[in-house]
């Protein structure tokens, strides 16, 4: 049996309210629908309250005196708060709306609607009122907000959770539009019935046509410009589906306790937008007033930033040599710990359309020297990836493997899958590996010991990443050089100064409870680990680098590389934008200086990708067309800027190139050092990727450009090289029984 709370806002409806209650009772009683009637009276000066009290003796009616501001909207909101049942009905007390329509509307609810609106058929109204009403519906409902039904109808039925979920800030007559619009934005289905509007037989209308139309119209326009609202799930939905929200009617489930404002769901905040526009306006004004001086200042600022970045990187690289910060764990230390002492460990492996590398992954996991009864290896598959699910079902996976199907939802990202996995993790420690990873067999043990050896506020241990197929082609060679630089020099340098470390995509180890404390990963950030690395520093924690390595597959296809790199750069941009929303968040954890290192590591890295081609272009143009444009270009470089610029150009480019060589040498990739001379070509492709990333950030910010893995498996020569590097066969199909 259905139960319904009916809210009737009244003000001087003595002639109607009694009949209305009776008609409601007659209708619902015969349909076997239980109900309660909540009358919220707006301090009527007639006998309305007495009549209601009288009927309350015979029917389930409660009378409440309006507490808040005058107006129907407030009466409704108060009435909703008194309701006991999960379905709410609002009906005007003027008897123009026929309560006999309620069963039909309930029927619509039973058939899946969340809100049912009784569309009025106007037959007894004046032409002017009819015209106004229809025009209003068309302009403010349909055109402005896409609502193709009778917004202002005084009879609606809807689920109570909607009103519990939405934040509505109505003026006296503007509840309906805001309610319906937000309901749609919150993902609710709205249905309608048609109902003939009766003529008022008693009392007077409370609506002043022009005044209320003006009020509703202004509110409709205001709502349009306020933009969309993120509407978190109702608590009951959260229990069933996990954490998520609706935006513009679309459902997003991110399985994280992060508030949407803490995620990269929104590209930029209003404030950031204002900053950007103001900056552009200042630049534009400068160009109009004095373009030459403006360009000089612009170039001077860029040159200065370059110069600072150059010095910072030099400092980092030097630090990585002078004060090597990575934690070393010896075999003796590992052997001293008996098997039963090792804590349980969860390994997350998000997989999407890459079942071909599963044998390789199983192989790698089986090689891990860790008590297998303490291992929980979680294959996180996407519900819509039927092929992988089917293939995995055929594998004879070891007992410590667990297949988890992540329900279909948006965003479709790796961090979303990991957050889902986190809710099912049983390990005391947790790590993410990509399916194509080949971690150092002792890595889990090393990480556990590294946690014990690290500073107290160390919350993450990052293993170093490198590649097992560096020799596959030019791209993999340079990519490997880049990784060697990043993990062997830059990250260790950053760690030595306790700076925010943009974590690598895999092989970062956590205590599971800390991951929960950090509210998991940002499902909307396509470089979720970089974001997490910054977030944990803001919370006062640090990351340590452990002397253990995970080998991955270097991207060997240019188009695949572009997809991956543009995603990374997009993720860095997301990370930068998220963490500059409120710069004060860097301050409480005594990490003020890292506000600057964050700017350099994340902001500087991205900015330089955009600016590099411009600087190269200016330099090349200057030297090639010097007789024609030499003086013109020189005029933009006053002596201090010129010297700083030339220094950055010559020494800076040289040093950056040289760092790659050092990275290779430090990692033992001596055979790759000679290819570093071609790195400038790689930089050029990175700049192209950055423009693609910017485009994607604007057009599809949460889209995860999937990197294809397993390309090395196709080439026997590369597979052989991989074997040499990893000292084992990566993919053994026999292992998984296929």
């Amino acid at each position, binding site marked *: 049996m259905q139960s319904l709370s009916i809210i009737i806002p009244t003000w001087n409806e003595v002639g109607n309210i009694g009949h209305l209650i009776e008609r409601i009772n007659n209708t619902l009683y015969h349909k076997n629908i239980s109900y309660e009637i909540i009358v919220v009276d707006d301090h009527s000066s007639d006998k309305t309250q007495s009549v209601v009290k009288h009927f309350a003796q015979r029917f389930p009616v409660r009378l409440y005196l309006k507490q808040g501001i005058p107006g129907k909207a407030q009466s409704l909101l108060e009435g909703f708060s008194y309701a006991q049942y999960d379905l709410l009905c609002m009906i005007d007390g003027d008897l123009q709306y026929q309560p006999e329509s309620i069963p039909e509307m309930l029927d619509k609810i039973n058939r899946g609607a969340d809100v049912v609106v009784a569309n009025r058929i106007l037959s007894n109204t004046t032409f002017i009122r009819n015209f106004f009403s229809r025009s209003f519906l068309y302009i403010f409902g349909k055109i402005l907000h896409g609502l193709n039904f009778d917004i202002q109808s005084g009879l609606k039925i809807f689920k109570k959770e909607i009103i519990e979920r939405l934040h509505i800030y109505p003026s006296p007559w503007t509840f309906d539009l805001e309610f319906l619009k937000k309901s749609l934005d919150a993902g609710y289905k709205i249905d309608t019935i048609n109902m003939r509007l009766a003529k008022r037989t008693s009392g007077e209308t409370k609506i002043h046509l022009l005044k209320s139309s003006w009020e509703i119209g202004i509110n409709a326009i205001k709502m349009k410009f306020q933009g969309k609202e993120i509407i978190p799930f109702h608590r009951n939905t959260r229990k069933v589906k996990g954490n998520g929200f609706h935006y513009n009617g679309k459902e997003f489930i991110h399985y994280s306790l992060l508030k949407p404002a803490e995620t990269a769901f929104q590209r930029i905040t209003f404030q950031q937008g204002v900053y950007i526009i103001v900056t552009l306006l200042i630049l534009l004004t400068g160009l109009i007033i004095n373009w030459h001086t403006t360009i000089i200042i612009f170039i001077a600022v860029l040159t200065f930033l370059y110069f600072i970045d150059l010095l910072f990187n030099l400092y980092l690289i030097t630090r990585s040599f002078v004060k090597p910060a990575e934690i070393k764990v010896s075999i003796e230390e590992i052997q001293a710990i008996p098997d039963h002492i090792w804590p349980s460990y969860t390994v997350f492996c998000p997989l999407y359309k890459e079942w071909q590398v599963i044998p390789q992954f199983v192989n790698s996991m089986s090689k891990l020297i860790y008590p297998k009864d303490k291992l929980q290896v979680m294959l996180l598959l996407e519900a819509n990836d039927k092929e992988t699910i089917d293939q995995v079902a055929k594998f004879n996976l070891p007992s410590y493997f667990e297949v988890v199907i992540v329900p279909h939802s948006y965003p479709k990202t790796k961090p979303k899958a990991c957050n889902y996995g986190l809710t099912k993790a049983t390990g005391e420690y947790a790590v993410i590996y990509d399916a194509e990873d080949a971690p150092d067999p002792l890595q889990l043990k090393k990480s556990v010991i590294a946690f014990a050896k690290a500073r107290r506020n160390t919350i993450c241990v990052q293993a170093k990443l490198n590649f097992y197929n560096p020799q596959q082609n030019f791209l993999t060679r340079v990519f490997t050089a880049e990784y060697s630089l990043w993990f062997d020099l830059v990250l260790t340098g950053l760690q030595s100064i306790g700076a925010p470390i943009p974590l690598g995509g895999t092989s970062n180890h956590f205590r599971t409870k800390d991951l929960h404390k950090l509210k998991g990963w940002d499902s909307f950030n396509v470089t979720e680990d970089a974001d997490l690395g910054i977030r944990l520093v803001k919370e006062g924690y640090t990351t340590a680098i452990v002397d253990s390595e995970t080998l991955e597959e270097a991207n060997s296809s240019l188009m695949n590389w572009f997809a991956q790199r543009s995603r990374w750069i997009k993720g860095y941009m997301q990370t930068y934008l998220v963490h500059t929303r409120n710069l004060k968040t860097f301050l409480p954890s005594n990490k003020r200086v890292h506000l600057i290192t964050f700017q350099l590591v994340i902001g500087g890295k991205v900015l330089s990708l955009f600016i590099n081609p411009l600087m190269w272009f200016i330099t090349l143009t200057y030297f090639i067309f010097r007789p024609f444009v030499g003086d013109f270009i020189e005029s933009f470089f006053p002596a201090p800027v010129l010297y700083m610029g030339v220094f950055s150009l*010559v020494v800076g480019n040289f040093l950056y190139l040289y760092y790659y060589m050092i990275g290779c040498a430090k990692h033992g990739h001596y055979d790759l050092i000679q290819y570093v001379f071609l790195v400038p070509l790689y930089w050029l492709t990175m700049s192209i990727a950055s423009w693609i990333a910017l485009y994607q950030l604007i057009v599809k910010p949460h889209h995860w450009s999937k990197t294809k893995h397993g390309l090395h498996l196709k080439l026997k020569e590369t597979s052989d090289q991989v074997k040499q590097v990893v000292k084992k066969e990566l993919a053994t199909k026999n292992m998984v029984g296929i």
Partner: protein
Amino acid sequence: MQSFIITRQQTFMESFNKKIKLFFSTNMEKMIFLLSICAAFIATYISYINHWILAYGDAESHINIAKKVVNGLTPGFAQLGGIWLPMTHILMLPFVIADPLWRTGLAGSLISGIFYVIACIYIFKLTRLITQHNFASFIAFTIFATNLNILYLQSTPMTEIPLIAFFILSSYYFVKYLHGNHVLSSLILAGLFAFGASLTRYDGWFLVLFETLIVISPGIFNRKLFVRQKGDMILFVTLAGFGILCWFVWGGLILGDPLYFTDSIYSAKSQQLAWMAKGELPAYHNLLLSIIYYVYTALANTGFFIFVISLVGSIVFLASNSAKARIGTLLVLFVPFVFNVVSLFLGQAVIFIPGLTPQHFDYHLFNVRYGVMIIPFMAVFFGYLVARVHKSLKLVLIMLLILQTALFFMGDTPVITLADGTHGLSANKVPTNVEQFINEHYDGGFVLIDDYARTISITQSTIPMQKVIYVGNKPYWDESLKHPEKYATWIVMQKNDAVWSAIYNNSKIQGDLYKYFKKVYTSQDILIFKRIN
């Protein structure tokens, strides 16, 4: 009772000795630091009061180059030119801004002094790295630090001491690399300091070449090591050779010829061609004579005893089975010898030294300072021999060292580099009545002068550098040679210098000269004109 007292005294002495030893071993580098600062200060003070700091003509040129970058008529890095390598000039920049430091040459002394101290510390460290012997290393330091030729040069703006410092620094880290200690950082630092050397003097280019060859050589002889050594070599030479590459690019972009340093009329090669034309380039294409010239010059700089003992030390080192990376170490320290012999052989350098240079030559003392470059080699291998020999022989060696040093200090062995500066061909313009005239009459305005010909000593005149028009102030110089009246208030010319040739020898322009200027000073070689108001 007596034996008890003796025992207690012995125990006390042993403990005292231990403490002394411990103190010296732990504080040796600090001591060397302080001692070398003291030595540098005293030597510079002596040079200063005797007006020896700018005794070399080149010394003044070096400091003037730096001054022109910051305070010239057309300041900027282009003033660094393309002949002399720029490192020391760049390092002097912050100091030459102060006029007194520029005019006295102390801006250069400061740089050389700092490098002297660095070289002293690293000679000690290098010897200790090779010998593992503190005392022997201290002896090596003493040989280097007390050498009067070194002490004199460290008080001047000359480039030899900075080069030696870079050379020693690079060698120290290079030997560390060869020993397999902190391989990567040592190799990078060796490359970094070789880079410094390559931008200080051309000798540094040989250092880069030799170290590169030493790095790759194990890979050539052992194919298994080839990939590793090739990687190391690229890593090294990319950094070490970057300075050389930059110098070529600088020449090409700024001066229009990547080989400007050797093709220019101001280059050493052009100078040597003049000597050759006069038949006074004795070692040219004569290897034996090249070696003899350099050995003789090195001997004159180090002293006989030190030279011979060090040579023995190097032979013992080479023959020693216990010494690590013998050939590599020896080769890298031997680079200055090879460079100088090759330079003499190719006619890129010339040395005139009494006792060897034929009597009929115009000059008998020139460029003998090149011999100081081998002193680090001598110091290290003298130290090595001290470390290897028995205590009694150690004493003999030390006595000979003291004797050699005493001979220098007592003046029995001449300080040949100073002699070259004071009365050799390297000597600077001795202030004459020309400078005196200018100091008395100069009342402002631009002075057109061929600075390269060293017509007058600008540091010893009262002319501000900003008022000098010379070949490096391109538009002013070129226009002034055609229209002398355009900028200049004063014109100083020396017989056959560029100003003389372009203005005085050109009848048309000479007319303008006398139209706008009047001759206010005349000597046998020098004329000074002042603009008629």
